[in-house]
């Protein structure tokens, strides 16, 4: 494929690039820019963090799972471009030196870029901005102190840049959903690539051959968030950082879960459509969307259909999607917020859920009038707890009702034991989540997230 982008302020024109070439490999092996490091090659450690700017602004992304075609028309800054053209240090670099933010120094370029992006965007939520960068030496505190110290310094001129709006290869990177629909109907065997936070691993870790790729990142019309009569319609190409913003006030518990969904680098790349379409039993979006009674919009050519999102997940690795059909959007119906999402994981950030439960329970006159409960990590697909829902619906909203549903849980779920948690823990934690919802609803102060530092 042909790719044009800015690299550290300079135009780069590439022709005939292998579409699954990652930016990290290209930087290190071809371009000779070796400041960007490889720590894991699968988006877990942040050592390869680069800054990517497009018309939505600058974001930190993991270069190791970023395919070159995703850069079309964008601007990339690596650690070599964070210092100024004359070698002037960026304020975060000076602060990292002053506050002893680097020890062995291998993770440092990635931290510096994450910090510089947050600095540029005026983002002072340093803990969140740095959640995707692993350090094995210093223990983060000096790094966070450096980020705080640099926060008030002005943004250097060279950090502000606007990429040129260049046209990509229309056969592999369509510019609209219509163009995508046509391409994909004609080439249903092609692999769709949105953020590549999953597909990237097929290449870097599983060494899969992907003969035909269609990149979705140029389809602007898939990246819109609209308030419609039916509710909040989120385009399939909307990245998770934007989903988090969109649901922050409507469903704060959902937003709180997304904050722990991957790292900033992963949220900035991953799309809601990708997370639904890959059908993972441990994806964190589907339980929340099922509980919210969201509608999935699918499209094949000019034909569109919709379904309650829970029906999309048929079995492990199997979704209700025809060849050539793609997820176009998801709509969350307008509703009063009754949602609580509980993500249980061992490590606070960047951890796959052992159990992710989403609960939406409406109560009228002291009785449960409607219950929608859905889980990830408890079955081969994201799954509703229909027996539990039946067991509590119509009953008084009390501890007795919750306890009365005890046996229903085992009708809904027979979870597996694996390295994330035992089957017993999963089932008991799920039960306790319902108790927790009740307690919180009745005013007892308890929130898993508040354990956070």
């Amino acid at each position, binding site marked *: 494929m042909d790719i044009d982008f800015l690299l550290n302020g300079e135009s780069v024109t590439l022709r005939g690039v292998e579409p699954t070439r990652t930016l990290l490999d290209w930087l290190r092996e071809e371009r000779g820019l070796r400041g*960007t490091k490889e720590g894991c090659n699968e988006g877990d450690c942040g050592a390869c963090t680069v800054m990517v700017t497009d018309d939505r602004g600058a974001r930190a992304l993991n270069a190791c799972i970023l395919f070159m075609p995703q850069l079309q028309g964008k601007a990339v800054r690596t650690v070599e471009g964070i210092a100024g053209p004359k070698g002037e*240090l960026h304020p975060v670099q000076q602060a990292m030196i002053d506050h002893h933010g680097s020890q062995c120094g291998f993770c440092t370029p990635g931290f510096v870029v994450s910090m510089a992006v947050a600095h540029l965007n005026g983002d002072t939520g340093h803990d969140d901005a740095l959640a995707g960068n692993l350090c*094995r030496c210093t223990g983060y505190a000096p790094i966070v102190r450096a980020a705080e110290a640099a926060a008030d310094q002005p943004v250097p001129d060279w950090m502000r840049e606007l990429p040129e709006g260049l046209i990509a290869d229309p056969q592999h990177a369509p510019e609209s959903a219509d163009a995508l629909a046509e391409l994909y109907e004609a080439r249903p065997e092609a692999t769709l690539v949105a953020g590549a936070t999953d597909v990237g691993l097929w290449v870097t870790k599983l060494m899969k051959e992907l003969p035909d790729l269609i990149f979705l990142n140029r389809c602007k019309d898939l990246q819109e968030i609209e308030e419609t009569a039916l509710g909040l319609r989120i385009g399939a190409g909307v990245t998770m950082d934007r989903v988090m913003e969109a649901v922050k006030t409507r469903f704060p518990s959902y937003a709180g879960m997304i904050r722990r969904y991957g790292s900033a680098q992963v949220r900035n790349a991953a799309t809601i459509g990708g997370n639904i379409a890959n059908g993972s039993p441990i994806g964190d979006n589907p339980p929340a969307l099922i509980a919210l009674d969201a509608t999935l919009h699918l499209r094949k050519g000019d034909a569109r259909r919709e379904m309650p999102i829970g029906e999309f997940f048929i079995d492990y690795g199997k979704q209700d999607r025809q060849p050539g059909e793609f997820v176009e959007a998801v709509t969350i119906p307008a509703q009063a917020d009754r949602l609580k999402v509980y993500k249980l994981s061992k490590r606070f950030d960047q951890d796959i859920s052992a159990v992710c439960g989403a609960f939406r329970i409406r109560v009228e006159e002291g009785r449960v009038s409607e219950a929608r409960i859905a889980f990830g990590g408890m079955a081969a697909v994201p799954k509703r707890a229909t027996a539990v829902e039946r067991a509590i619906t119509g009953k008084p909203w009390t501890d007795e009702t919750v306890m009365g549903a005890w046996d229903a849980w085992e009708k809904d779920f027979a979870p597996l034991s694996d390295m994330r948690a035992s089957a017993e823990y999963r089932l008991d934690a799920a039960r306790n989540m319902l108790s927790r919802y009740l307690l919180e609803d009745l005013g007892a102060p308890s929130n898993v997230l508040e354990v956070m530092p």
Partner: protein
Amino acid sequence: MPDTLDPHVRFGSNSGQPVTRRDGLAKVTGTATFAADNTPDNMLYAVFVPAAIARGRVTGLDTEAAAAHPGVTHVLTPQNRPPLQGDPSDKPTMFSFRFEALQDDSVRYAGQPIALVVAETLEAANEGARLLNPKYERLTPRTDIDDAEPYAFEAAGFGLPANTVHGNPEAGHASAAQAIDVTYETAPQYHNAMETHAVVAKWEGDHLTLDMPSQAISMSCAGFAYYFGIPAENVTVRSPYLGGGFGSKAIPTGPYVLAILAARMTGRPVKMMLTRQQMFGPVGHRGQTRQRLRLGADDTGRLTVIDHEGIAATSTFDDFVEPAANASQGIYAAGALRSTHRAVKLDIGTPGPMRAPGEASGSAVLECALDELAEKLGLDPLELRLKNYAETEPGTGKPYSSKALRECYAQGAERFGWNSRPRAPGQMRDEDGLLVGWGMGTAFFPCPMFMAEANATLRADSTAVVETSAVDMGQGAWTALAQIAADSLGLPLDKVDFQAGRSGLPDGGVAGGSGHTATAGGALHAAGGDVIRQLGEIAAADPDSPLYGAGNAGFVARDGRLYVAGDESRSEAYTDILARSGGAEIAGNGSASRAPETAEQHAMNAHGAVFAEVKIDPDLCQMRVTRLVGAFAAGRIINPRLAESQLFGGMIWGISFALHEEARHDHKRGHIVNADLAGYHVPVNADVSGLDVITVHEEDPYVNALGIKGVGEIGITGTVGAIGNAIWHATGKRVRRFPIRIEDLLTS
């Protein structure tokens, strides 16, 4: 001040200062060159194929398909591998393990190299490796610690810990009024430095140049020279920056040897960089342990016996055994002490030293067992430790070279607020209803010294160059050792050109065992002292010098001037002394090691006390460490900024040990299921909060010339036990395995 420092060197003008790291600029701008950043012209890439089974043999490799792939230049298998001159099963140096370098078709653990593909590009090498499509004959793998019988062994050097008995353990058990008998397990852990192992190997005739991260440069040269049949001086190792080491980068490994072999075979430079997944196998790990601790105490809480038995997993073909039980020697004043070790041979890669080997696993269990005893005795955990405070080394009766542990307990407890801790568990909740628990543990680590040599040359312009093949794996050698060197020469830091991080310099020793600053620093200190001694002799003998005839009084060296000791009105600049002497440079050298008789006279340990607070969700059992206070006494601190960072890092490793790190085997197939950073957890920023380090003042006139005890490893000890104890205190549930998992706390 009692001090063995040379009296003519004033110490402390550079040392003791929180200088920022001298390599900081290179690191924040991405210009620090790590091994894999080297890309010489005409270079090839090598990728090894890891075994997908844990036991059996390779029956088929599609070498034709791999060799036919465009860009692939060579495919190495046991059938065509060129010979090595040294046997991979030999142990030519202290840091040598037996390794696999395609000797035969057997598979001894998952992840073992079974073939090597060399290609013009990394992509081609990877694709060639995939095309080999290995076929296996599988045997039932043994990866569970119960899959084989433990065996005893005679202590025989590195990796085989001693069995040690002091006093009469049986009498100790018999006389105990209260006793506990508990068994704990610790998980296999992998170093996972952020930089994976990497090498760029280049041959020029029979001279070999290696760009690679090495914690032991001279010993690496000797080791590689052995396998390739060349003199050690023909091996150049360049290791200016290591992206972390933690013990895994001291030892020649099979992948390295294969890459070097490929370079010799092709006559071209070869780069090999391990993937993160490949780090779980051929490059060492902290072995799994099962430890039984039997403690006895009299009615007042005085220990009658500490009886510590360790079983550790090791490989079928080598014998490194995690020396966990040794952690019970030398810390508490028990009537009798016994530490024994046995090993279990499994189909796993050979374990090796990983940050605080033995002490980390052993102290985790010892400190928890002590808490169990304290509970039984109705004593506060700190009180129990103070009752058994060792004034001299238990067992041997040797005096400590210094020991400010009591101050560590006091200052740590004060900062933490330990006094308000309720004794019974499950008593504290925070405002959100979370269970809160407090626990503590004693930290300690020995103060070994290795051998190091250094040169120092003072130039006519009062600048100096100092040289030793010391290693900076992140701890700050580029900075702290330069501070010591500058002090030894009486020069400001910016006047000293510090050369290190490669072979061809005087042997800087090993960066490990928390002994590198003391050892390499000692050599630099001696080399600088040698220069100053010569300079003083020149001045004292020079009638034109204000220092003429003052040789008997001795000199003080400071800021490029020599002063007469006791009469600082008489002084002269180095430049003036040297100018009159013909402007010649003065070269000095020095070495450092610990004489056996010195080692016999004192017990030498760094000490500390760690206090932990955890909060636990009562319904969902999620655990967070919310506060850690560590107070450490580690002798002279050369650079407080660097030392605190090392201690923080160690304590975070303690969090990691207690709650996160664990390689999980699929025991049916024998491979590790979480061999990546998504599944093998190290703490993220949010897992670490409220860390506080106190460095307790301590002067040690005996431990070494500089009074340095080392800070690299002690932080992990004490911390693990403190967290385990805090979890008990929060929940009343005693979990006897690490890491502690959420489901371990499930009570319903």
